């Protein structure tokens, strides 16, 4: 596949100001976005992909997407300095050619001259995102932000701490076989409930480990794969979506997996019933419960009962998950676990997981990543893969 003739530039806009005193960086990004959309004759709600670089404040483009109220199927914050925006046109064209999006927005904005003059001076890279002043005073932490999502899920659906604990119990059953896992002891529901509450309703054992380390992935073309000795895993489909506070219409009971999951399943041509193994991002136990619902493994609100009674344990339950022990027991390198999710799914599809946790006939697997905070804004990404020779 090539991008040749598959994508068109429909609108452009250059901001007229050369000194933007009285305006913020997020505002400037929104103003150029509005200008380019008007030039194209499109509206904000037509945009389904957003590309930006390091001049946007926040976590990649997610805070800026929230500022602009974008609902996206594709988000990319590739940073290569001044060349970033040319790279973005290429990446947007690739995504459009692949059918992953239809209307991509690319923005650049900044105010180094105004920064030098005004009291709002911000550090290079765009400074604080627009939401910062409205959240920082209230001391959000990773744990209390996931805690608020769990509290609301419990309130709406009757999810219990015992059900959340089952996620950790299942991870620990798997971690006992992983010689590199940080926590190899099998724990019980009672152990989780008896560990101290960090932030309501999450106990210490509802939280993932803090670890060093890392991982890497090699992705190749089919003709390269054909010449390699190692079994190669086929990528069937992928979906991605940021989720944010939506201008104050807040709903913490779901994650961006609500959108990234169906997109990945559609492209892969499979359904949740076809998934033999799932790597589900497990920063906290509640992350797994909400994600499993959003991916369609059960109805919304039924994640608690679904994960209970060992249903996530390989060889015991219906949905073997995180057979390396996951972030909860094995590893969460650099406080980012997405790569280990793909790695364990590849082990399963190659038949190279630990024999005690290897899923028999594992032909289709899923890996899902969640970045940021379930309690405010996050990036979600779903990947579906097929076993070598399947």
């Amino acid at each position, binding site marked *: 596949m090539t991008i040749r003739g598959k994508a068109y530039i429909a609108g452009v806009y250059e901001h007229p100001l050369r000194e933007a*005193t*009285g*305006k*913020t960086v*997020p*505002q400037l990004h*929104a*103003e150029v*976005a*509005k200008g380019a*959309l008007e030039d194209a004759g499109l*509206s*904000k*709600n037509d945009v389904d992909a957003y590309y930006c670089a390091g001049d946007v404040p926040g976590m990649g483009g997610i805070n800026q997407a*929230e*500022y*602009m*109220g974008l609902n996206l199927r594709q988000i990319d914050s590739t940073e290569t300095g001044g060349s970033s925006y040319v790279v973005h046109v290429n990446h947007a064209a690739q995504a459009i050619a692949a059918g992953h999006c239809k209307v991509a927005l690319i923005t650049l904005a900044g105010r180094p001259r105004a920064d030098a003059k*005004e009291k*709002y001076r911000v550090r290079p890279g765009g400074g*604080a995102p*627009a*939401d*910062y*002043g*409205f*959240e*920082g*005073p*209230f*001391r*959000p*932490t990773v*744990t*209390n*932000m996931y*805690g*608020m*999502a*769990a*509290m*609301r899920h419990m*309130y709406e659906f009757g999810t219990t701490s015992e059900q959340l604990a089952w996620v950790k119990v299942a991870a620990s059953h798997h971690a006992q076989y992983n010689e590199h896992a940080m926590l190899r002891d099998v724990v019980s529901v009672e152990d989780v409930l008896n560990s*101290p*509450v*960090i*932030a*309501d*309703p*999450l106990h*210490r054992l509802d939280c993932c480990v803090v670890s060093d380390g890392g991982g890497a992935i090699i992705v190749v073309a089919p003709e390269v794969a054909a010449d390699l000795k190692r079994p190669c895993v086929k990528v069937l489909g992928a979906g991605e979506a940021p989720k944010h*506070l*939506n*201008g*104050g*219409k*807040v709903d*913490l009971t779901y994650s961006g997996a609500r959108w990234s999951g169906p997109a990945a399943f559609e492209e892969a041509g499979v359904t949740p019933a076809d998934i033999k193994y799932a790597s589900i991002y497990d920063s906290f136990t509640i992350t797994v419960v909400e994600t499993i619902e959003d991916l369609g493994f059960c109805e919304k609100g039924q994640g608690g009962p679904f994960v209970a009674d060992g249903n996530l344990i390989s060889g015991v339950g219906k949905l073997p998950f995180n057979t390396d022990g996951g972030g909860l027991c094995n590893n969460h390198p650099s406080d980012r676990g997405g790569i280990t999710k793909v790695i364990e799914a590849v082990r399963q599809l190659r038949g190279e997981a630990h024999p005690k946790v290897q899923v028999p006939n594992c032909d289709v697997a899923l890996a899902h990543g969640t970045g940021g905070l379930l*309690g*405010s804004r996050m990036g979600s990404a779903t990947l579906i893969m097929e076993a070598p020779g399947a």
Partner: protein
Amino acid sequence: MSEQKVSKPKVKAPRVNPETSTFWEATAEGKLLVKKCNACGEKHFYPRSLCPFCFSDDTEYMECSGRGVIYSYSVTRRTSEPWAIAYVTLEEGPTMMTNLIDCDFDQLSIGQPVEVAFVDTGEGSAIPFFRPL
């Protein structure tokens, strides 16, 4: 579980910028503002110069009653001074992040009515905390 009460939360002056200075100046007068869009009629929070629902730049501030209900909360307990972070859904519609103060953390519940309780930063602004009614 903890029985601590918090009456005097620590406050630092917020980072103010050209888009939000009106909001923060109003807090010093005890007023809680949200933005309303004159094009689509939606209200939003945090305040932006462009409406996040329709991208119109015809937005204006409106004063809120200061009352709302707890959408969710979480008490951070593994610390010498626990605090309750929360989202409060305002009577006017938008939901905003805050802390719940002047209360017994073990008596909080989702859906509980609350009202804004500004705590002055001493730098021309006040932080909009909330307390149960």
